[in-house]
């Protein structure tokens, strides 16, 4: 073995963000120029986002949940305090990042010609870990 690295996922690619949200059961709306988020009373909030889960797909008292690109190209989650409290919290965002990273990794591997050797889901005390194996041609 020759190298070992630890990384923190940054969500930068819209395509994989959308796929990850779909895998979690949502149908996000995409608005490249960004649109204001809508609050639970139907009011327009001041935050704008490019990828949005409309509030109707969430709880009856939810606000829109959005992902907005910052100046560095990273998507930042815009989640109200109420929605964080009903489960759209750091744990949910971590799970989203896990699916995002899996999708991104599979796409990169395919594009670069790595040979997929298998996927395993490993139970750990910190939750499920996804292991992907590739061979180098």
């Amino acid at each position, binding site marked *: 073995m*020759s190298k070992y690295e630890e*990384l923190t996922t940054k969500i930068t690619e819209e395509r994989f963000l959308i796929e990850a949200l779909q895998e979690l059961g949502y149908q996000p709306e995409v608005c490249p120029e960004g649109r204001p988020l809508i609050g639970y009373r139907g009011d327009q909030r001041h935050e704008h986002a490019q990828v949005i889960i409309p509030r109707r797909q969430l709880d009856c008292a939810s606000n829109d949940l959005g992902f907005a690109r910052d100046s560095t190209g990273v998507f930042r989650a815009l989640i109200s305090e109420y929605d964080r409290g009903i489960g759209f919290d750091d*744990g949910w965002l*971590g799970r989203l990042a*896990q699916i995002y990273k899996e999708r991104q990794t599979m796409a990169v591997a395919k594009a670069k010609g790595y040979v997929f050797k298998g996927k395993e889901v490993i139970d750990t005390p910190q939750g499920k870990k996804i292991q992907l194996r590739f061979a180098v041609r």
Partner: protein
Amino acid sequence: MKEKTVIIEIDEQGNSTIDLDGFHGKGCADVAKDFHGRDVVKTSRTKPDFYMPETAGKRQRQQS
């Protein structure tokens, strides 16, 4: 010859690891880079094979 493999593990907190197996020398750096995307590298360490030039590795195998 030992197969070169890439093992990527992704946890539920959005952290991942890249483990490169069977590589010699600096060739593994490009492979690791392929999988970085825009992610932040928190730690990176090389392992003993890294310091073994590929040609030296081949020579050793031919002798054995």
